[in-house]
């Protein structure tokens, strides 16, 4: 098989590798779903797949189209009311890691998935929080997965849907309640982490062939860099084989 790989495949393997040591993960659809299943087959064999729709220990027989797909129920270890999932599993602190997408992200890792433009008269009405705000506040680790683009990486959000590390800069008190903030931002060009001190986003790793300048061009604020910037290892043939032959044979997310 060709060792060429797509931007999506680079994001998938980066997310999967970030799940090493996680015992439980809240699974989204699309790339996050493939990433979680790849992690189970590589770095985290005991990883428990949890869906906010009310499923624990899912064994989907096909690539689920949504987090409500019936294939995540058949063969699962536990299926129950959503209140149990949100109260006892998520708020109960039983989710080690969760992957979130977003339409906008700022330098503190705050997310907007609600509106483009003013809330009362939006230019574009986006889906809204769903579980995102709840997950960011209650999961032990939050990973953001999104393409690098100046439309996404903005200096100021149109709406704060989901809290990041903003509380460092603003309200310290509520931080305990507002969760620990995102740990990693996974994009098609680079990986970003957040500074220990003030929680500002910094460039942590460049994907093969990508320059610091190319990244900075797509970020809407003066991007800080981590003390040392590493280079992301490309997908291994083994990882690509699992993705292409087992997880996404039809190449829907190629």
């Amino acid at each position: 098989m060709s060792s060429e790989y797509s931007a999506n495949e680079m994001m998938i393997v980066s997310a999967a590798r970030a799940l090493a040591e996680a015992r439980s993960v809240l699974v989204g659809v699309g790339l996050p779903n493939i990433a979680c299943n790849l992690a189970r087959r590589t770095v985290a064999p005991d990883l428990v797949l949890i869906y906010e729709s009310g499923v624990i220990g899912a064994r989907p027989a096909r690539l689920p189209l949504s987090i409500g797909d019936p294939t995540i129920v058949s063969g699962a270890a536990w299926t129950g009311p959503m209140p149990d999932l949100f109260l006892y599993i998520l708020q109960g602190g039983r989710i080690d890691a969760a992957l979130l997408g977003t339409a906008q992200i700022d330098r503190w890792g705050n997310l907007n998935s609600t509106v483009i433009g003013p809330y009362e008269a939006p230019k574009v009405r986006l889906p809204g929080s769903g579980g995102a705000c709840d997950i960011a506040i209650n999961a032990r680790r939050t990973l953001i997965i999104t393409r690098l683009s100046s439309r996404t990486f903005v200096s100021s959000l149109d709406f704060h849907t989901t809290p990041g590390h903003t509380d460092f800069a603003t309200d310290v008190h509520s931080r305990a309640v507002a969760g620990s903030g995102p740990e990693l931002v996974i994009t098609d060009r680079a990986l970003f982490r957040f500074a220990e001190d003030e929680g500002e986003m910094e460039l942590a790793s460049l994907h093969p062939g990508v320059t610091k300048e190319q990244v900075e061009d797509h970020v809407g604020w003066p991007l800080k860099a981590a003390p040392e910037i590493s280079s992301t290892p490309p997908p291994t043939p083994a990882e690509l084989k699992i993705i292409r032959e087992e997880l996404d044979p039809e190449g829907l997310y190629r």
Partner: protein
Amino acid sequence: MVSKVTSMREAVERYVSDGCSLAVEGFTAFICFAAAHEIIRQGRRDLTLIRMTPDLVYDQMVAAGTARKLIFSYLGNPGIGSLHAIRRAVEQGLPGPLELEEYTHFGMIGRYIAGASRLPFFPLRSFSGSDLPRVNPNIRMLTDPFLGEQIAVVPPLNPDVAILHAQRADEQGNTQAWGLLGVQKEVAFASRHVIVVVEEIVEPALIRRDPNRTLIPDMIVDAVVHEPFGAHPSYVQGYYDRDNQQDQAWDGLSREPQALQDWLERWVYGVQDRQAYLKLLPPGTLERLKPLPVRSEAVDYGGYR
């Protein structure tokens, strides 16, 4: 006891009135499109539509002009894209304005639990650091009397009517469901009237041989409607799959107001009931959606005399 079984037409005429608040719930699964289409056909107006995920079912009801307001937590076509009719209403006020009352999933769950429990509020760890409390005064903060910590609270939600689809019920309304249970039980207990719509009506004895499987007891059910495939293009675990072809088609046609109206003409106004709707489906659709059998083991409750 007298049977609660009635037709979808009668159930909607009797319980869904102009201006009422309505929850047709179901998280991707069990979404009762048959009820939504009957409500559109009967020309209901000014409804407050309540759902965590408005989904196609409310996109269609908004496009048909039934809705005044939406109470929700996620506006999307799961795994596919946007809800274009709702977006037109919100972004352009077409066909008319649509009021939004917005929460997170957990916030909606908390409102349903409080409503079902006759609690004045429900506390949850969410919303802090979000703009949602700024645009929704129903989301407030409270100080915990034990440790003095701040925690968010939401008020009870009590829909006038809940319409809930499931696999089976008896004629009294004892309803059993398996698969993604979502918030079906909480919505049922929170609502003033409950209509259950089922794939099969079964003998009470069958229900009573597995009482732990009963999600909704008959004492809170007003009407039972027998409507096979009443959730299509949504799905019913073990009975049929989600019809992603129709969901994907909706993503395209719903971008075009005229195409959307043509769709409503053909699939909703143009048919008199769900049986007629099913006849319009491409040949082989229901067979295509049928899953392979995966049966559970029976369990023994024991007879104690």
